[in-house]
């Protein structure tokens, strides 16, 4: 009985953490929408990629399947490559005005 209550509390707490992380992801999307120029949007993209890895990890805890962690690894590498690609594009692009 006590074990069941502890397990229930654990699952509820992980749900709460996923909710907080989703709110924080929405805040990053606000910056992606309102960013005045492309470098600010690149920063927002990097933060969104890191948040995605965090949500992957918490969801793997919640559903007790550690196979999802492979997806977290792939998402981390792809986020890094995307950020570096955006930075290269900004650096090589012809300057405006």
């Amino acid at each position, binding site marked *: 009985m006590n074990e069941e209550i502890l397990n229930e509390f*654990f699952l509820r707490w992980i749900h709460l*953490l996923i909710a907080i992380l989703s709110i924080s992801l929405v805040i990053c999307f606000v910056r992606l929408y309102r960013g005045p120029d492309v470098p600010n949007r690149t920063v927002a993209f990097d933060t969104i990629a890191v948040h995605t890895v965090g949500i992957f990890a918490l969801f793997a*805890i919640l559903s007790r399947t550690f196979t999802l962690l492979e997806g977290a690894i792939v998402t981390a590498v792809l986020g890094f490559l995307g950020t*570096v690609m955006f*930075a*290269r594009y*900004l650096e090589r692009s012809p300057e405006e005005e």
Partner: protein
Amino acid sequence: MAGDTLRLGVVLVVATIGTVFMLISAVGVLRLPDAYTRMHAAGKAATLGVSGLLLSTGLFFIHEGQLLRMIALIALFFVTSPIATTSMARAAYRHRRSRRRLQLRHDEMRESSTEE
């Protein structure tokens, strides 16, 4: 069973610390005034937050042998995050429209920049 409960408690504490740091990082990205200070929030606080989350996941799946892989992923983040932040900062500096908005007393990249 007591060891198992202790392990779940440690998982909860570390995951909560990681989530709070991720929230601080997102608020910093939203509220700070400049692209460079936003990189400051996105580069360090987010790395610490995701390290906490991945460490708690590795502790949760420690009987399945996932802790070493999660530590390798944390090491990957600690390697790639400064590289990404440095290349973003250099790109934002060379992007001319954001340079005009810069408020610096001493510009260190002007001497090392080859384009001017």
